[in-house]
């Protein structure tokens, strides 16, 4: 059985926990409203006002003028994320992080030791609440796709179990847009065909889906039948490590995309270093508003785990991809592949001004030992250099 653990309003919850005076108040984690900052995360108190992530902070403050805005502290969230993962690996080594706040766990081999998958899910939720003072929603299902849908159904603080013998019953009433790969465009086409729920989609023959949607039609057919064979792949066995973000609203501003890419790059680089891995191929992924998806990659002369080197390459790839203005995007991803395990490192004769490995190592150590607040990057989501933590 697979668990999908999704932390509820993760960045905002960490801030509320670290600063009790914020708890329960409408809270936005994001960039400054004076600049072109956007909302990175919103707690449940502010979501009631219609605030959601990737919305410009200025718009969010119009909807909820008394909201408190704090600057994101990605390093802090990465630390908390690492602590959550330490809880996971007590139950199974098969942990596949999707981002800082979600992960898949394959607990099939752990059930004999720790009880059923559902019991493990309860224990994890309790441990996350007691030791980290955070709330998670968990989906328990026979595969990744179902577990991910399940974790999202009863947020926050949800625990939804998909019985392997009742998968069809579980899926049938859900709207088709719950399926991966079905967004506005595919959703509209399906609605025109009178298909609104996954149950209705299942009635469509494979051939017809293939005709209408090509290769992704087959994928839709499989998902509608609850089929998903992908294994949970832990980082240290991964051939690649990547993170991606789907924006709730399409994004056009190149600066916002850059800031978002930097956040993704930092997460990927930190995961590489945690696992003593280095990657050689840097890739970015962009999905346009019309669902066209492009990937751009570059092979580096040497494998690296340096945030700075990965960022230089990723930001160049982004810049060359954003040739047309006024194009908006719904998804951004960053990944590293051609990964090798670090055993030996080649010494160098001359100092490399671009070599930040010591900086990375030192800042990782500081964060591991003391938490994060002293070590932060000058730029972050939507906030320009020099912008400080802000409260309103």
């Amino acid at each position, binding site marked *: 059985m697979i668990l999908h653990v999704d932390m509820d309003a993760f960045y905002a919850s960490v801030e509320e926990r670290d600063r009790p005076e914020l708890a329960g108040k409408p809270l936005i984690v994001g960039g400054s409203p004076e600049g072109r900052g956007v909302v990175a995360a919103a707690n449940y108190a502010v979501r009631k006002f219609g605030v959601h992530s990737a919305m410009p902070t200025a718009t969010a403050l119009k909807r909820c003028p008394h909201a408190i805005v704090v600057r994101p502290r990605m390093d802090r969230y990465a630390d908390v994320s690492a602590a959550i993962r330490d809880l996971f690996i007590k139950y199974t080594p098969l942990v596949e992080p999707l981002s800082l706040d979600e992960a898949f766990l394959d607990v099939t081999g752990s059930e004999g030791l720790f009880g059923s998958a559902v019991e493990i899910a309860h224990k994890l939720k309790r441990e996350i609440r007691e030791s980290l003072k955070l709330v998670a929603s968990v989906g328990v299902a026979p595969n990744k796709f179902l577990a991910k849908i399940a974790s999202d159904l009863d947020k926050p603080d949800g625990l939804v179990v998909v019985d392997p013998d009742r998968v069809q019953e579980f899926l049938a009433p859900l709207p088709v847009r719950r399926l991966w790969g079905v967004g506005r465009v595919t959703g509209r086409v399906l609605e025109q065909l009178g298909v609104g729920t996954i149950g209705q989609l299942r009635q469509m023959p494979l051939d017809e889906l293939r005709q209408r949607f090509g290769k992704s039609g087959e994928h839709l057919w499989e998902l509608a039948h609850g089929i998903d064979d992908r294994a949970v792949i832990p980082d240290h066995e991964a051939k690649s490590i990547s993170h991606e973000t789907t924006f709730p609203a399409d994004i056009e501003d190149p600066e916002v995309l850059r800031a978002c890419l930097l956040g993704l790059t930092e997460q990927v680089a930190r995961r590489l270093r945690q696992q003593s891995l280095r990657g050689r191929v840097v890739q970015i992924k962009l999905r346009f508003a019309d669902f066209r998806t492009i990937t751009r990659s570059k092979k580096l*002369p040497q494998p690296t785990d340096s945030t700075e080197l990965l960022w230089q390459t990723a930001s160049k790839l982004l810049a060359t991809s954003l040739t047309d203005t006024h194009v908006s995007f719904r998804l951004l991803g960053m990944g590293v592949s051609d990964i*090798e*395990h*670090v*055993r*030996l*490192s*080649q*010494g*160098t*004769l*001359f100092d*490399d*001004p*671009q070599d930040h*490995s010591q900086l990375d*190592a030192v800042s990782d150590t500081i964060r591991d030992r003391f938490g994060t607040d002293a070590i932060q990057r000058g730029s972050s989501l939507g906030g320009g250099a020099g912008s400080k933590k802000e409260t309103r």
Partner: protein
Amino acid sequence: MRIQCHRPSLATAFQVVSGVVPSRTPREILKNVKLQAIDGKAVLIGTDQEVGIRYEIPGVEIESPGETLLPTNRLISILRELQDEGVNIEVSDGRVMVRSGQSEFGLSAEDPAEFPEVAAFDAEQYHVVTGEAIQAGIRRTSFATDVESTRYAMGGILLELKSDSVALAATDSRRLAVCHLACRSHGIEEPANPSPVIPAKAMTLIERSISDEIEEVLIAVHANDVLIKCGNTTIYSRLVEGRFPKYADVIPKDPKVTVDLVVAPFYSAVRQAQIVTNEESRGVDFVFSNGLLTLNSQAADIGQSKVELPISYDGDELAITFDPRYVAEFLRVLDSEKPLTLSLIDGESAAVFRTDDAYTYVVMPLSRDR
């Protein structure tokens, strides 16, 4: 223009000049070579605008002078397939006619005036080295360059020119190759640029242009470019911009241990040790103990190897880990029966190899800590 050529000589000329012709370029005209037949000499010219070459073709009879552009790859194919010894090239009505035996090719040609100039060697001030010495010097350094480097001028070979000697140095910052040659200078009082960095591509072209009959190579360095004359071939190159690292500082001054070795058995041991390495575990441990050098390597999923070599060493055991490729690349350019020395400080510091003919090679080891 109308000329009569010796086909094998013309084919050789095309082979040499095509070394600079870019296969991909935004300027299509650069995919051509220019054939110039004036003043009783036929010269084939190619350039990618960084590096250019002028090659004087021997055995050409100029019936009427002139110049034309020729599509490089097409001409190479034609010259390869023709059977007769003689080839006639004629330009008429904007077309190039290539005739040989029973065959005739008519090719459209672009305007030779559009082709960028490649300077001829007319310098009064230059350095002179023997062809043999510079050829060896280039072979001994060019493999250590790093054309991808963006921070230092490592994409070429540094020449440090003095009135009676020249040092060649190349590095990719993981290893450094330096060799010294004798030279003489001609007409130089105050050198315009005593330490140019010449692109690896141009240096390789020079190395290939030197044949046995070429005794002397003339090198004229200017502020931003260099002209080199090897016999009837002239090579023009822009210099690599940027700063070459201060290489002399990283050559270990007083190593603790020096071991005498002979190229062939040492190279053989390194090549054997290299077999059981892979991308993930490239390292080979070089362990120096009493009378014995042991090369240990192991790689997950492959296995391990141990190769022993008797050496004259009686100090404390000393171990250092190298990427064997960096050692093998150095040994490959040496004569197999020659002696060399390897000097070490410890397992973490740069190691230095030296030959008895003023060639120094420094390698940084692999380290385990991080």
